[in-house]
């Protein structure tokens, strides 16, 4: 059993490592892709050499970042098979399709047109080149769409049915999978947050150049596009964040409870704006969940349901099956202990189905099939050893969520001010405090990366212990490997990715530094 726990932990660690490294590069690709395309559009319309120089400056950085995103992305796709082989069979019928569509529709678009974007300036017409730049950005966004559809399905499995004859889930509605509320909110929230990061990156790099008084006109051009994309990104990220919270409350109430460190829920539930969790708090004991907290009345009820009076269940309520509708009537929510019992019964029914199927007993097969489908939503609970196993890591989910929201709020203010300074440069130019502002622009870049990574930690850690919500816990999803093997590959990837990250950051910094010394009002520099 210890070996099993180790394999699960190392497999999770390896996937988390790969995903976090991958996500360091993807949002900049998504954000900067749109920014570069807008800049080239302005060049196409104005025919200004200055805009061409600015476009090429950012395009170079885009290229460096794109390459490492590709390198880390391939591992992620294949790790579903190498480290999560049971998962690959159990839900491959549903999960594989978005991945294949991503390859056919998005990856080829990206990889074909990025070559034209970089090497086609003198080989294709300006209009075709502009189209290629946009298609590269669109390809990257489409790629994000399909992988996020797949991820959203793991958070909220829908449009499928379990087939006991094949021991797997099978898709019954493609549109239910592709257009689920979880998929839509996840896609828009994620991609728009990437626009925010792209915008902040441009503002931060310009801040560094303005600090050294290099290429001021180029910075002003860049800031115009970067700040606008950033502002649009953060405003829409906030709006989609709100819809994400509603979908999480509806489909993953345990995750929401962990995000808030909420053990006992209530009507008119307040939200913790800032707080420190009490490490002694466990489900069932009488400790205060917080050592310190600043709460906003009605906040969580409103955030989760858009009704300030609604009931929001806490961790203990969910474990005990306590919940109420908007009129205060108790809902028929099944306690986790009963879910576990029903899950174990299901496993027995499926085993009986297997025997009946081999014996050719069609009557028994049909009757068992119906019984299995009726209760299948509790299937995964049959693998749990205790109800408490279904609680995610509360401190990690709580603190990353609050960090994300706090930094998100800061980014809103920061980007609006940056936009104001673009149109009213006299406010900042030549002022004593201008250096402070430029430094703030620079520091905001890593802060935004941390914010972005925090969002993913909330989404993925908050789903634990499930690989597929309610259907498959991690310990059942893994491959038949020894912990030593996975540990070895984990460290290999850790070393390789870190070495590549060092090179990536170094090249980008050197490119910015070197090019900032040239005249960015002209091309061929």
């Amino acid at each position, binding site marked *: 059993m210890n070996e099993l726990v180790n394999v699960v932990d190392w497999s999770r660690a390896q996937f988390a490592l790969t995903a976090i490294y991958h996500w360091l590069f993807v949002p900049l690709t998504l954000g900067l892709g749109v920014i570069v395309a807008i800049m080239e559009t302005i060049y196409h319309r104005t025919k200004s050499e200055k805009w061409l120089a600015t476009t090429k400056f950012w395009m170079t950085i885009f290229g460096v970042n794109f390459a490492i995103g590709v390198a880390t992305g391939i591992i992620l*796709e294949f790790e579903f*098979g*190498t480290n*999560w082989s049971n998962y690959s*069979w159990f839900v491959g019928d549903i999960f594989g399709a978005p991945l294949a569509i991503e390859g056919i529709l998005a990856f*080829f678009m990206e990889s074909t047109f990025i070559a034209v974007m970089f090497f086609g300036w003198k080989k294709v017409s300006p209009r075709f080149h502009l189209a290629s730049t946009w298609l590269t950005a669109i390809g990257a966004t489409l790629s994000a769409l399909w992988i996020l559809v797949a991820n959203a399905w793991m958070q909220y499995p829908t449009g499928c049915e379990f087939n006991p004859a094949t021991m797997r889930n099978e*898709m019954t509605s493609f549109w239910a999978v592709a257009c689920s509320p979880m998929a839509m909110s996840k896609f828009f929230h994620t991609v728009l947050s990437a626009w925010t990061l792209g915008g902040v990156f441009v503002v931060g790099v310009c801040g560094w150049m303005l600090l050294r008084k290099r290429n001021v006109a180029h910075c002003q051009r860049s800031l115009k596009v970067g700040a606008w994309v950033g502002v649009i990104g953060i405003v829409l990220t906030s709006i989609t964040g709100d819809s994400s919270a509603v979908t999480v409350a509806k489909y993953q109430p345990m995750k929401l409870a962990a995000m808030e460190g909420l053990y006992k829920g209530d009507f008119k539930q307040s939200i913790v704006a800032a707080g420190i969790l009490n490490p002694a708090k466990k489900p069932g004991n009488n400790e205060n969940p917080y050592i310190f907290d600043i709460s906003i009345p009605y906040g969580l009820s409103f955030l989760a349901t858009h009704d300030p009076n609604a009931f929001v269940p806490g961790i203990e309520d969910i474990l005990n099956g306590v919940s109420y509708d908007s009129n205060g009537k108790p809902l028929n929510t099944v306690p986790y202990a009963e879910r576990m019992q029903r899950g174990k019964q299901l496993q027995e029914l499926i085993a009986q189905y297997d025997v009946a199927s081999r014996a050719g007993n069609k009557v028994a097969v049909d009757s068992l099939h119906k019984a299995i489908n009726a209760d299948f939503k509790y299937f995964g609970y049959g693998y749990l050893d205790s109800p408490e196993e279904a609680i995610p890591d509360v401190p990690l989910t709580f603190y990353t969520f609050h960090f994300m929201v706090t930094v998100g709020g800061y980014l809103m203010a920061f980007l609006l001010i940056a936009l104001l300074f673009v149109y009213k440069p006299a406010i900042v130019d030549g002022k004593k405090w201008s250096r402070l502002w430029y430094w703030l622009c620079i520091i905001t870049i890593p802060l935004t990366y941390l914010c972005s990574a925090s969002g993913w930690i909330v989404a993925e850690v908050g789903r634990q212990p499930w690989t597929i919500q309610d259907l498959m816990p991690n310990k059942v999803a*893994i491959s038949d490997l020894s912990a030593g093997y996975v540990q070895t590959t984990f460290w290999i990837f850790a070393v390789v990715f870190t070495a590549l990250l060092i090179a990536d950051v170094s090249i980008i910094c050197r*490119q910015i530094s070197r090019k900032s010394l040239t005249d960015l009002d002209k091309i061929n520099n």
Partner: protein
Amino acid sequence: MDTYTLLQNYWWFIISLLGALLVFLLFVQGGESMLMHHRDGDERSLLINSLGRKWELTFTTLVTFGGAFFASFPLFYSTSFGGAYWLWMLILLSFVIQAISFEYRRKKGNVYGTRFYDTLLIINGFAGPLLLGVAVATMFFGAEFTVTKSNILNVQAATISTWGPLHGLEALASWKNLLFGLMVLFLVRTLASLYFINNIDDETVFVKQRQLLKVNGAIFVVLFLATMAVVFLQSGVIYDEIGVTQLQEYCYLRNYVEMWWLAIIFLIGVAMVLWGIGKSVMVPAYSHGIWHTGIGTVLVVLTLFLVMGYDNTAYYPSLLDIQSSLTLRNSSSSEFTLTVMSIVSILVPFVVGYIGYCWYKMDDDNITRDELENTDHKY
């Protein structure tokens, strides 16, 4: 033939086609393995910039091949990737180090220096095709796995696919697999020479690559004949209507005979491969060999994949439990999923169309030293 069977066969055709295109596009890796023969900086730069405009296409085809395999035959994905862990991890690592090397090799501040990145490209150039060849060879010569789907109900040992303790390293110790891998390696090196002759306008590169073509082409032909002899003599696993499997002697030779149209395509492909190599060796002014040999490669590999899975043959034979062997029937996605993906696959000709158009526009003129000097984005 019912609709489900038809869909399974259709998707095996798509997988086979993607596999065939991937083998052709591995000329990029073949070209990377050639870097060791071009130590001069400018020559090497010409080669790398020529390959650098194509590497993402190969990479994307590999990723799509994996994604399409996952979507259409998830039990293969589950069994082979989780089982032959080390083999696939080595393949992936070799492609990870490639993905950044083109872009980073000449960039200021790349920390490790140009030679380091060139070495990574050379490693990918040899390891990528060799290991992919070994992985494909296990689909002919078998692998050490068992599949028991009902294991998923056992929480203590829930994995449905189990593998021998070496987890893919044993595949590298099989001479048949290695022979297959080496054949693929020398095929893509041959294709690379033909590609460079067609794509680079430089006398030094031309002369050197023609010389390399003669050597690699000859080695490839010998390895190809030996590999085909081993494949044709190999026993395979066939299955009946209810899925019961049995061993079949000379399985793949039998399949070529029974599906004679595939044998004809195979022979046409072989003739085109040899024609492209032969004419390029014999006629110094001839530079279009890549197209003959490339199309021939696609045809040959396509039929090899098809005889592997069609005609009631298990495309992934198990060496531990013959009944666990993977077939198009027991490893595919559901009829609904295959139907959905088939609708999406209607867009494939459109995708191929724009790739072809862009390739045509980008390769309108051959790469020269002058062009490299006057471009602002080069590798």
